[in-house]
């Protein structure tokens, strides 16, 4: 994924939320994007997935320009938004079947992937229950399952483990590692920095709409003389509240 000199401002606002931002993420990478609240992580994620279009600059994914009217590029990536993105009135299976079809799978492949994912993410026993009645952890797993139903080459994850217990977090991170080991590029944001240390090889810190640090954890620790990602985060972004 290449992001070149992008600016972005929300309609009706004067100040640009992102300004002159550049970023390159290699294929097969496990990339973490961190920053305080309001830094622009979710906006950048929405720009990378084509939900929003930059005011200036260009974003390319696997050679395809994002934000064009063609939806071919959308087959290549999956997105797991921070908010629960499914129909609460439908069961886990019904949601997966619907999103599978919209992701471009045929009936047979949708059924196969639905069964696989329900089993992998421990949702088989509750597959027919309305998702609205699920616990927070189960909802997070459904949210993830929908994002990967079509075996995307690139997976965007916006805080995929927020509000879940240790067991669910462990299951989700393990599954994401497995996906990355099998060649899926992960682009991930989170406030769970310990979790991020175990998952991400490459990372970038974003603050006030700009990338303020970029590299592997080792490179950044060496450069800024900090032992952990959390120490590095505080030293670069300060201790003041941001929202």
């Amino acid at each position, binding site marked *: 994924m290449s992001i070149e000199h992008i600016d972005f401002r929300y309609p009706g606002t004067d100040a640009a939320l992102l300004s002159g931002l550049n970023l390159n993420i290699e294929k097969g990478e496990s990339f973490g994007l961190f920053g305080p609240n309001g830094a622009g992580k979710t906006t950048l994620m*929405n720009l990378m997935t084509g939900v929003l279009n930059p005011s200036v600059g260009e974003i390319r994914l696997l050679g395809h320009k994002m934000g064009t009217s063609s939806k071919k590029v959308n*087959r290549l990536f999956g997105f797991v938004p921070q908010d629960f*993105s499914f129909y609460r009135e439908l069961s886990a299976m019904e949601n997966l079947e619907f*999103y599978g*079809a*919209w992701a471009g799978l045929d009936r047979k492949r949708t059924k196969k992937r639905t069964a696989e994912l329900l089993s992998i993410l421990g949702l088989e026993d509750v597959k027919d229950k309305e998702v609205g009645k699920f616990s927070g952890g189960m909802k997070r797993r459904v949210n993830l399952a929908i*994002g990967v139903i079509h075996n995307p080459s690139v997976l965007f994850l916006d805080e995929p483990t927020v509000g879940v217990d240790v067991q669910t977090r462990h299951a989700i991170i393990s599954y994401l590692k497995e996906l990355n080991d099998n060649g899926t590029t992960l682009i991930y944001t989170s406030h769970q920095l310990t979790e991020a240390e175990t998952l991400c090889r490459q990372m970038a810190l974003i603050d006030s709409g700009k990338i303020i640090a970029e590299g592997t954890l080792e490179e950044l620790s060496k450069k800024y003389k900090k032992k952990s990602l959390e120490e590095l985060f505080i030293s670069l972004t300060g201790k003041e509240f941001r929202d």
Partner: protein
Amino acid sequence: MYKLWVTIKKDCKILLRDRTGILLMFVMPIILVVVVTSIQNSTFQLIGKSKLPLLVCNKDTGQASLQLISAINRVGLLKVSPLPKNESPEDIKQAMKDKDAQLAIMIPADFSEREGAKAQNSANKSLKSFGLQPDSTRHKAFLPEPPFTLYFSPILQESLRFSVQGGLTSALQLVEGRETLRKLYYAINEKQLPPDLENEMLNTQSAIGMVSVSKTGGLGLPNTTQHNVPAWTIFAMFFIIMSLSASVVREKTSGSFIRLKTLPTNYNVGMLSKQITYLGVTLLQAMVIFSMGIYLFPLIGLPGLNLPSDLTALVIATVITGWCAVSYAIMVGVFATTQVQGNGFGAVSIVILSVMGGLMVPSFAMQGGLRTVSNLSPLHWSLQAYYDLFLLGGKLSDVFVNLIPLFIITLVFQLVIFFQLKRKNLI
């Protein structure tokens, strides 16, 4: 096709699990149709079959007042209830309140004498114009005063009051005509008018020719069911706005929409699915309400619904009406930013469009400018098409003139939806 099928299945499942939505779309309109038809049927019966009670205080002791009461009874509109002779105007007003009567008349003590003098006067004028000698007897002179007084409740509808006034005038004219005829006959023949001749001359009872101006020329008389069921079916179809606009807003504002935007399927598929699903709902609504009119109404004492002879025209009119209702609901949903906004605006706008369209006040009763405004309401064209089919026995060729504007309004709604989705970068 698979995507569309899966999306329709998704929309149907969400719809079936929304019990409040189903209640609003099916149960409420059914209750509305039954209640409105029952109430209007009672009013029709009050005017058509039952007689309005009329309290009569007859202070007169002569024959003319008795003839007047007999003539009032024969008009068929009123049921006479006598009051004591010595009632004052205040007593009559009180009696109306006590007996829950909307109408009363007071016949003055000199009614027969006045009518006699009036008849003699008319007879004399006629005799004079024939060149005959009029009656030279001097009669008492009366000031020109109304022959009797009608008391009425302000609750009584104006149209009904005019009908009663017409009936009473007709009865009075019969009495006056009889008296004049008797005087004339006596003056010419110097003997009383024979009763059989009097009856022949006064009670001709010539029937008025009646032709129902329907497309078929049949004499099917409209009833409350034929009027109400089509009208409230249209209202019910448009009332899906409560569920459909909320569904569009909910999808637009929920997280699911963000995900839909990142998937390789155009949101037009989602919009098409909603249109097909809810068009099915509107057709089902029409079937349920029409079936109720046909099978249930006769069981609860209401006139049964007669379906139009051209069923193809009925199906086409219903499909276009349903599609228009769905398009309007989606348009409101696409513009609304919250469910409360969509529901509030949706419900109020449907009531306004119903009033404009003639569902609550007939379009023909509207003044010039308002009548032009009513043409902007899609419900007006639907209603005209249904009335042509249900009341006038029209065919498809007769309702095209209404279906074409309805179709054009629907296309305008579709274009507005398209451009708004495009403007918001949603398709």
